[in-house]
């Protein structure tokens, strides 16, 4: 407000001056000239225009520049007219603010490159420091922290004095500290205070600011160096927490992919090489669901995954039953043939999907509640990973409950423990076989829905998970669901602690070697089944 007033005052003086000189009326104002530069489609002109518009103090400056940032500013190269498409879809002339019916056909959105985007952010930071919207003020304070524009110091200080919301006040204080640190004529004591404020912030951006300080008076340089080392040691501690979290997240993905296999391979003993393709089918089901929602019911997009989960279970489960009835049931007790048949099947399924959907990746969008991240202390937790972890644990719990408490679960356990006894007790073993295989496949399908959120949806999707899945099941102990759970999280966490040290490639190799050594020692995995079932 303060700066605006001064500028308005200046503009007023200028116009009085102009009037008193009896200048020719209807001259284009400097503001109009500045805005017209957006129409030149030259990055250098656009940069000049941003600076001039931001400094003009015109009430339209802020809407113009935020429109530029969002790609809502368009310019007609012929008439040099510039238009703002407002967030509610209305179109106004950028210089006058007057409503316009439509943007001319030859007008195009004003282009930006990264350098200009930074300029825009900085300019907008200066313009929205006093915005009534708290979210905008916070964003502005953060962008000033990054840009530390010296001439914004009075505005920031004014905003700091007025601010009542605590986190925003903190952000303003940090922005002020950043400016002072880079101000050449600030006193040592001010700078020392500023170092303390930035040190208290303690994150990577604070670190970047302090390490990029350049020449400073010796006292300040020393304080900055000690702040840097204290932030670094703090961040190093957080990076352990971060690795543990990444490990859990990777473990949940491994578990999700392996859970279905823990049923078909672990419980039934079928070496199912087409397991990965069931995952892929689940992912493609998600794609189809989203495609239908996009074209017919766009408002439902955020629920697309909820709709896809049961559908993926049904699609993959149905195909699983079909496979069991037509191929696998003839091959029980012949592992080598089962392996070959299911492997051939996996190729057939891949090629079928490739023919139906094309060889290229399909876009599966993240619903809004699965995009982005939040900060927990000094680590970033992305929503999609968090949801997948929760989802995996839920699927695991439901599966466990199903095996334990339902009639079908009881029959499944009976058949896998002692098929002949179960048959003589009146259980239709072949029906149970088909349903068990269908259940394992269906869960693989559900996994596909979740994996479509973090990986490519392409015909090869399944291939990348099949090996990891076998690894998890064998490591955890064949036939034991809890073993699969522990195995997946152990492998995930071990992998993520190895990765920063050894690199992704060596880390993966090291894990493989460790598993091979482990299997030598304990051929039945972490949790070996005991008792008669082992011999069956």
């Amino acid at each position, binding site marked *: 407000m303060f700066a605006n007033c001064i500028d308005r005052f200046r503009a007023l003086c200028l116009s009085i001056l102009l009037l008193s000189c009896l200048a020719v009326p209807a001259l284009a104002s400097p503001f109009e000239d500045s805005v017209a530069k957006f129409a030149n489609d030259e990055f250098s002109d656009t940069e000049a225009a941003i600076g001039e518009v931001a400094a003009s103090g015109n009430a339209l400056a802020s809407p113009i520049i935020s429109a530029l940032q969002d790609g809502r500013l368009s310019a007609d190269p012929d008439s040099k007219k510039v238009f703002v498409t407002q967030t509610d879809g209305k179109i106004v002339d950028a210089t006058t603010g007057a409503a316009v019916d439509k943007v001319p056909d030859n007008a195009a959105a004003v282009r930006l490159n990264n350098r200009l985007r930074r300029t825009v952010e900085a300019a907008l930071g200066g313009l929205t420091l006093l915005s009534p919207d708290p979210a905008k003020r916070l964003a502005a304070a953060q962008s000033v922290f990054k840009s530390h524009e010296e001439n914004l110091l009075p505005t920031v200080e004014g905003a700091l004095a007025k601010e009542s919301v605590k986190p925003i006040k903190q952000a303003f204080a940090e922005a002020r500290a950043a400016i002072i640190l880079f101000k050449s004529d600030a006193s040592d004591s001010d700078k020392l205070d500023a170092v303390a404020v930035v040190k208290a912030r303690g994150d990577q951006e604070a*670190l970047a600011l302090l390490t990029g300080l350049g020449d400073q008076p010796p006292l300040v340089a020393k304080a900055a160096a000690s702040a840097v080392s204290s932030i670094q040691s703090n961040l190093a501690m957080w990076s352990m927490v971060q690795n543990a979290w990444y490990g859990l997240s990777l473990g949940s993905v491994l578990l999700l992919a392996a859970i279905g296999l823990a049923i078909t391979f672990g419980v039934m003993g079928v070496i199912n090489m087409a397991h990965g393709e069931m995952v892929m089918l689940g992912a493609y089901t998600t794609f189809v669901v989203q495609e239908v929602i996009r074209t017919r019911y766009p408002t439902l997009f955020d629920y697309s995954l909820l709709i896809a989960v049961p559908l993926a279970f049904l699609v993959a489960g149905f195909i699983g039953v079909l496979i069991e009835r037509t191929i696998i049931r003839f091959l029980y007790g012949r592992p080598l043939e089962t392996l070959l048949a299911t492997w051939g099947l996996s190729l057939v399924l891949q090629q079928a999907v490739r023919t139906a959907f094309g060889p290229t990746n399909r876009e599966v969008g993240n619903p809004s509640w699965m995009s982005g991240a939040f900060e927990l202390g000094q680590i970033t937790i992305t929503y999609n990973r968090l949801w997948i972890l929760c989802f995996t644990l839920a699927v695991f719990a439901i599966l466990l409950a199903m095996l334990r408490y339902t009639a079908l679960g009881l029959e499944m356990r009976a058949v896998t423990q002692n098929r002949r006894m179960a048959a003589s007790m009146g259980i239709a073993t072949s029906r149970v076989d088909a349903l068990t295989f269908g259940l394992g496949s269906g869960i693989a399908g559900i996994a596909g829905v979740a994996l479509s959120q973090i990986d490519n949806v392409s015909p090869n999707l399944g291939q990348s998970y099949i090996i990891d899945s076998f690894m998890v099941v064998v490591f955890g102990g064949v036939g034991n669901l809890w073993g699969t759970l522990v195995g997946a999280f152990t492998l995930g966490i071990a992998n993520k602690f190895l990765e920063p040290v050894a690199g992704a490639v060596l880390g993966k190799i090291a894990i493989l070697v460790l598993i091979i050594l482990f299997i030598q020692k304990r051929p039945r995995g972490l949790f070996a089944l005991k008792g008669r079932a082992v011999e069956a």
Partner: protein
Amino acid sequence: MLTQLTHGIATMTRRRALAATAGLVLGLAASSPFAPAQAADDTIKVGILHSLSGTMAISETTLKDTILFLIDEQNKKGGVLGKKLEPVVVDPASNWPLFAEKARELITKDKVAVVFGCWTSVSRKSVLPVFKELNNILFYPVQYEGEESERNVFYTGAAPNQQAIPAVDYLMKEEKVKRWVLAGTDYVYPRTTNKILEAYLKSKGVAQDDIMINYTPFGHSDWQTIVADIKKFGSAGKKTAVVSTINGDANVPFYKELGNQGIKATDIPVVAFSVGEEELAGIDTKPLLGHLAAWNYFESIKIPANEKFIKEWQAYTKNPKRVTNDPMEAHYIGFNMWVKAVEKVKSTDPDKVIDALPGIEAPNLTGGTSKMLPNHHITKPVFIGEIKGNGQFDVVWKTPGLVAGDAWSKELEGSKDLIGDWVGKKCGNYNTKTNKCGGQGS
């Protein structure tokens, strides 16, 4: 470029029986459904050697369609030398040894006059001996690591000095980047390219501490640690950029993770050498706004020749959303060069065509004219594009003229004195210091 080694290796680690049968089943799966019709003598056969199944199908299928499209267009104009062109399509199924087998089949059984094909460097290396032995011509359309110049191969994709070096120059000049992350998939193309880039950066005064090199396996999907590392590396108070030679499928989860962890192009820009329109078709590009790619062609380049090409391509594929990309343009240039060379010598005899090709010029789709050089590489313009919200690129910079492709990198100790010259010296690795043919790669 892409070698799907992980799958191969992983297969081996499972039971031996599987490994043994793997070959068998792959062989079966790969036997081509495109058996050539008994051709009359009045056609010229053109071989197409691109994977239509397996991991590389995602990229190579489009190139097969491109050549079919170009042949179709040429036949509408009356073919070549008064004869119609006849495509012979085989499917090497992303299986490197099968590439050599299929190449042999194309040349000896189908008697093709020229072959357009391969994507990965390992597949090119696998067919090289076949083309040398049977003396035929291969047009290779993909950007690659360089360090090669063979008499029977014409490289229409970019050499490192036509893509990687200009991109790094752009970041240094325009973005004032001082710290560099070189991230790549772990195989020959990224490793060689990064070796060249590292040498180049050091020659420009970048300290070892300001370069971080990181390799990941094929199909890597969990990028959390690496993206966090990049963030950490970027918080040293110096402008940081990522130069990505990450290949194929792994790019999608990489960019998703970047977007989710909130790394914006204005903070740490990523410039990619293997991400084009086709790869972006699988992701929501809004969080990627401003990240960069370096290519010799972008679909968004607005000149009449390109617009006409896109329109005809979409009409041919009956898909109004079908995108075009850089390797497609390379095939477009290569195909037209071959046609011109054949018409010049009035023969499809490989020896005559190979001798005629250097010096042949053909228009590219970005408004210039590319020329085949004596080292069998071509001249190309280099563009830097920024990713837009709609999956296309906005060109923000281009080289003032066309850049001649170097077969041998000037940045590497072992190759800086070597040149390829199949016109004067008749040698692919002529050492200009010792004035002898031979050296590295001989």
